[in-house]
C-alpha cells in the first residue's frame, strides 16, 4: 500500500498535498485498488466553491460509483483534464498523474481534521482486518 509521507488524508480516502494556500487533491492507492479498473472521473468545475467533507467529484468503475469528498474547503482552480480520456491514470499513478484537481484553500485550520501518513496507514490497516 503506497501512502506518501508528504501529504494528508481523509477517512473517505482522498489525499491532499498542501503548498501554502494551494492544495492538490486525488484519491489514495487504497481507494483506487478497492474500486478496480476506473472507467470515468466526474471532474469538478473550475471555480466551484467546495466545502470540507462535502461531495465534489465522482470516480466510477464498471460496477461501482464512488463520490469524492473535498478534503478542505475552498475554490477549485484547476482540474486534471487528462483524466477525461485516460481515467486509468488514477489506477496507475494515484498520487501524481492521477491527481484530480487543484484548489485554493479558504480555511487552513481545517488541516487539523486530516490524517497524516502514519494515522492514515493505521486507519487503513484497521479497515482490512
Amino acid at each position: 500500500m503506497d501512502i506518501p509521507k508528504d501529504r494528508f488524508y481523509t477517512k473517505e480516502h482522498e489525499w491532499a498535498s498542501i503548498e501554502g494556500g494551494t492544495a492538490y487533491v486525488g484519491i489514495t492507492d487504497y481507494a483506487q485498488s478497492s474500486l478496480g479498473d476506473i472507467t470515468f472521473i466526474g471532474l469538478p468545475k473550475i471555480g466551484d466553491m467546495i466545502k470540507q467533507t462535502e461531495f465534489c467529484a465522482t470516480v466510477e468503475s464498471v460496477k461501482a460509483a464512488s463520490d469524492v469528498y473535498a478534503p478542505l474547503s475552498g475554490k477549485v482552480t484547476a482540474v486534471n483534464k487528462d483524466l477525461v480520456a485516460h481515467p486509468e491514470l488514477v489506477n496507475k499513478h494515484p498520487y501524481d498523474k492521477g491527481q484530480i484537481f487543484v484548489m485554493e484553500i479558504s480555511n487552513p485550520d481545517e488541516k487539523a481534521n486530516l490524517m497524516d501518513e502514519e494515522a492514515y496507514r493505521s486507519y487503513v490497516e484497521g479497515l482490512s482486518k
Partner: protein
Amino acid sequence: MKLIFEKHKEGRRGPSHAKTGAPKAKGLDPKYLRKKDTNLPSLSELDVVRHYTNLSRLNYSVDTNFYPLGSCTMKYNPKFTERIALFEGFSDVHPLLPQLSGGGVLAQGSLEVLYETERLLSEITGMKAFTMQPMAGAHGELTGVMLIAAYHKDKGRRRKFVLVPDSSHGTNPASAAIAGYQVIVIPTGKDGYMDLAEYKKKLNNETAAVMLTCPDTLGIFNPHIKEIADMAHEAGALVYYDGANLNAMLGKARPGDLGFDVVHINLHKTFGTPHGGGGPGAGPVGVSEKLVEYLPISRVVRRGDGTYALDYQAHKSIGYIAPFYGNFGVILKAYAYMLRLGREGLIEAAEMAVLNANYCLAKLKDYYDLPYDRTCMHECVFSASRQAKNGVHALDIAKYLIDRGYHPPTIYFPLIVKEALMIEPTETESKDTLDAFIDVMIEIARLAEQDPTKIKEAPLYMPVKRLDETKAAREPNLRWRP
C-alpha cells in the same frame, strides 16, 4: 456475427409494403425536408429473417435453458397467451376509440379485460382497488410513491423521508428519490430481518413511507411484518409492498391483510407473461381504501347495465402516468394465465415454487455458505465466500454455469450478502432439471477446491469469451458508424 448494417447492399430492396393509389402530391418546401440520407441498411426479406433468426440463437431463454435468475421469477410462459394477444380484436384496437363519442361500445372487450384483471388482483392481494397503468415494476414503484405523496399533501402533512432496508432492490430508493423524497436506509439485523431498533429510531412524523419487499430479497418471510406496518401507521406513514416476490405468497398471505397501503405487482414475474428480453412487463399498483381517490386517471368502471366505461372524474388523482390504460397486451396475457390456473393452480404455483427453492437450498447448503440458514420462500441466497478464498468468485461461477448450459442465478445481489448467488428455480421446473443443475453446482464447489483455473477460464464454449467491460465503459462505442 456481422451487424445488420454490415450486410447492407446498395440497391438491394426488400418487398415494398407501401402502395398508394393517390396521385403524386406537390412536395413540401425543402426547408422542412431531411437533407442527410440515413445509413439504414438495404436488404432482402430473407437477409433480415436469417439475421434475426441467427441472433435469437445466441441467447439463453426460458424455452431453451434453465434460468434460475433470482428475483426475476423466470417461470414457463404458456404459449396460449401469446396466441390470445395476437387476436385482431385485441391487437388492432386504437386506444383512443373509447374516448370517441359512440366509441365506448366498440372497446367493451378490452375494458372488460382491464376491469376483471383489476378485480382478480384485488382479491389476490387483499387490496381495495388497482390501477393497471404502470408499465413495469419500477414504474409501479414510482406510481406508488407518487400516490403516497399525494395522500400526505392532501392531508396537509409535510413528510420528507422514505425508509428503505439495505437489502432492497435498487429501484426502491431510486423511485422514492425521483418522486422527491430523501431516502433513509435501514440496516439488516443479524437474524436477516430489517433491524427493528434502527427502524424505530428512524421512524417519525417526517416519515412518508417505508418500502418493504415481502418475502424479502433474502427469500425470507419477516414474521414482524405486521408490527412494522402498524408502527408506520402510528407515525402517520404509509407502507409500500414491493411485489417482486409475490409468487411465494399466492393464497398464503396477502399484503392487504398484512397492513400494506400500496402494492405493485410484476405481472411478468408472478403471472407468467414473458420477460421479452427486458420488457415489456406490467406493474399494476393496488391500494388500500384511503388511497383510492388518488389513483391515476382514467379508471375502468362497470355500469349498472353491465357495460364498462372509462372514468376521468377524479380531482384528487395524481394524473397521467401512462398515455392510456397500461401495457394492455401484457395485462391480457396475465388475465388469461390467472383464468387458466384459477384458485388451486395459483396456490399450487406458490407451494411448488417454495418447494423447489427449499430443495435447492437443502441440496447445496453443504457446499456453499448460507448466510441465513432457515426455510426460504421462493428463492434461496447463498454466498460464494468459501469459493472466493480460492479465487473463484460469484462471477466465475456464473460464467462456468453458462458453459454448462445454465443461465446463472442473480449474482452480487442482495448487496448485503458478499459474493451472493440468488437462486429462484420457480414452480415450473422439474426435479430432474433441478438435480442436473445441483450436480453442476456441486461440481463447481469441488473444482473451486481442486482446479479453480478451470472455472476462471469459463466460458469457453459460447459465441464470445469473457468480454472487456472496462473497455466498454472507458471507450463507449454505443452505435455503429459507417
